């Protein structure tokens, strides 16, 4: 069996695992959201699973990876057979007729996903970060079969950022285990899969809120953003910026869903947001800052959101939000906690140690750097639209044209989140032990990739058809649909 076919089976196994997890979460409909979340959950579930398994002493490799794939595909097949039998016995409610706009957009999105997959697999891994940080760790994990490898703990072993998280290396290692060797070109399949998952999940969640047509159109706007695809450092490469965009975007998507207080949102959104936020932490160190921004943005949105004008409303919403928020915080703390336990054992060579370096005196001392970094950032976001796309112009347009809507809790959350993550980049530029212009100048375009889904979510939700005037306070629990 050729390694390409085995890679394909591994990729199907990832989706199957994700499908098992979404079924466990009660997402039983065959809609865009379920499949989008399945793809992304499959990848993160595999990496987290392998990490925890290896953390407690398990041996990575073909046995565990093939076992996981066969187990997942079998479970999905059993579920499919069971569903088919039940369908014969039960009268199923007719699914909502999809809108014509949704049909057209879904076809175009399908073509874009296939295009991303083909283009991604047309080149081997070839950029700095994808090889120096992530793929080298994947090779070591594949050969050494454990995250506790002495090689990864050796401060003199040549790898960039030894403390960087292992989600991508473990996912690549999983595919190497299927292929029986290191083929870095074919392991890139996970990146267009994340693109597909992100776009489908956006389509589904926006569709739930604004109707299928608008959901699919919003997803199409996201899928057509050049900096995500076909820009080379986006989903076509093995860099971690686009996956960060995927996990961060989906964490924000489900937190936003939570903050709309719709009956169908609730514990499941809290759990999904937690899983995606934890996976952002497990993909790149920016995920830690993003998690802090999420917490601050939720707090600010609840305090300052328009619907919080009456104390009764605020108290009642805090009461409703308590359980999902606890689930979100608990999920991130638990998963990221285990990662940080392991991270402590890894060497510090070439680490920037942003968090350790932050101090009031340093921030005051480096304040003048903003004189360069803010204009640079604005230029990247707005003046260089021919290269990266017009998404930041759309954010401004959506903000100005629907300013009153920005006062709503859910929209404020998105705004604070965007502002917080941009501020985090400026602070990183202030404290990094590297030349500012070289450091930020060479990375802002990649950092902004991570924020694009949030920007498009803001635009789509600002311009989305009006929702019912009364907000629903109170969620259902995780229920089967």
């Amino acid at each position, binding site marked *: 069996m050729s390694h390409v076919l085995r890679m394909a089976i591994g990729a199907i196994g990832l989706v199957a695992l994700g499908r098992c997890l979404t079924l466990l979460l009660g997402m039983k409909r065959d809609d865009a959201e379920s499949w989008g979340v399945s793809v992304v959950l499959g990848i993160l579930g595999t990496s987290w699973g392998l990490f925890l398994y290896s953390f407690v002493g398990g041996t990575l490799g073909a046995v565990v990876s093939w076992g996981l794939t066969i187990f997942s595909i079998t479970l999905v097949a059993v579920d499919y057979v069971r569903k088919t039998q039940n369908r014969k016995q039960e009268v199923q409610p007719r699914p909502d007729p999809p*809108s*014509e706009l949704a049909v*057209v957009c879904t076809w175009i999105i399908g073509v874009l996903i296939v295009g991303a997959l083909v283009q991604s697999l047309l080149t081997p891994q070839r950029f700095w970060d994808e090889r120096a940080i992530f793929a080298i760790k994947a090779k070591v994990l594949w050969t050494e079969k454990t995250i506790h490898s002495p090689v990864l703990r050796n401060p003199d072993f040549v790898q*960039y950022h030894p403390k960087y998280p292992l989600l991508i290396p473990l996912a690549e290692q999983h595919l190497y285990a299927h292929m029986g060797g290191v083929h870095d070109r074919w392991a890139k399949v996970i990146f267009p899969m994340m693109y597909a998952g992100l776009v489908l999940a956006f389509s589904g969640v926006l569709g739930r809120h604004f*109707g299928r*047509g608008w959901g699919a*159109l919003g997803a199409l706007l996201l899928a057509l953003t*050049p900096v995500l695809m076909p820009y080379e450092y986006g989903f076509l490469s093995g860099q971690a910026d686009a996956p960060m965009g995927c996990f961060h975007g989906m964490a924000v998507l489900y937190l936003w869903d939570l903050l709309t207080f719709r009956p169908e949102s609730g514990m499941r959104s809290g759990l999904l947001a937690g899983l995606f936020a934890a996976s952002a932490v497990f993909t790149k160190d920016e995920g830690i800052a993003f998690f802090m921004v999420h917490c601050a943005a939720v707090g600010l949105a609840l305090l300052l959101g328009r619907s919080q004008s009456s104390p009764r409303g605020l108290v009642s919403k805090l009461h409703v939000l308590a359980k999902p928020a606890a689930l979100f915080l608990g999920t991130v703390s638990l998963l990221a906690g285990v990662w940080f336990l392991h991270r402590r054992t890894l060497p510090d*060579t070439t680490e920037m140690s942003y968090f350790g370096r932050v101090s009031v005196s340093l921030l005051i001392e480096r304040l003048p750097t903003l004189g360069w970094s803010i204009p640079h950032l604005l230029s990247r976001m707005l003046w260089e639209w021919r290269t990266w796309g017009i998404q930041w112009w759309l954010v401004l347009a959506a903000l100005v044209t629907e300013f009153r809507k920005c006062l709503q809790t859910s929209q404020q959350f998105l705004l604070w989140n965007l502002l917080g993550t941009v501020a985090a980049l400026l602070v990183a530029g202030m404290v990094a032990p590297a030349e500012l212009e070289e450091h930020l100048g060479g990375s802002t375009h990649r950092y902004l990739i991570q924020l694009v889904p949030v920007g498009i979510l803001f635009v789509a939700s600002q311009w989305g058809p009006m929702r019912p005037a009364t907000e629903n306070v109170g969620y259902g629990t995780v229920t089967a649909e």
Partner: protein
Amino acid sequence: MTSPPRIERCQSIIAVVAVVTGVLLSLVTCVGWLFPVEVFQDWGFRQAPQNDPYAQFEFVGRGEAVWWMCCFLAPLGAAACGFLFVKRVNVAPVVVGAIEEIASLTSGRFSVVRRLAVLAVILIGVVHLVGGVWQRVKDWPYYRLNSGETVLPNVSESNREVIRYLQQSTPEEATIFIASDQKLYFLSYYLWPRKVVHRMHPDAEHLIPRANQGRQLAAYRLNELSEGVVLQGQPDFIVEYFEGPDFVEPERHTEDARWLHFTRENHRDANYTPPFLFTLTPTAEWKSR
């Protein structure tokens, strides 16, 4: 409610577009299948600037990529056009309905801004997608379907030579200690499962190298490191590899006879001397010095 005349007009447009595009793509397909790849490579060669072998290599590869697209992508497009033509009665109401739905969803205040925004995103997206396809055509000469190990992409010529030499001169399970003023990440990546170990100078940790030794990175010379540091990871081989002007020692460039033989064979020049310092020494031999 969609008016029938609109649907009929849309059907006609779909029919015309599908026929014209389908015929064009069918012709392209015929060209691809009737002419061998060499015709396309020759066409590429003739587009390249004269006396520039790198450009000629690129253009020949691009010609080959265009041939692949003619053979396989064009028939797919032609088939899609055929499908559209046959199904135009079913497709037209969906397209008209979708356009009307967009118009309705973006109506209200500032509808012009919203519609222009959607149109702009689609237009820019399509332009970039076409650019992406052309970029893959440009990439093809370098990558084809080869593995990264075969291509060694985005690696300097000197790095490439060192990687090839170490791959053939050291066993796969070897640990190699390298004293160097270079960032060795790609060596480490392509030499794995050989373990590349290097003591990085603290002043070089957060510096990014520049092309053609445009930035001299701080580094430890081998004789500046204690034996304990060098032997800490129990290396099987010790390498000295310096390219920067502060570290090269021209009188030592011919010190390693096997390396010199390799690189002279590689350059097909019996008198070639590399402009950088490279030596490979088995640890036992190094210890005995």
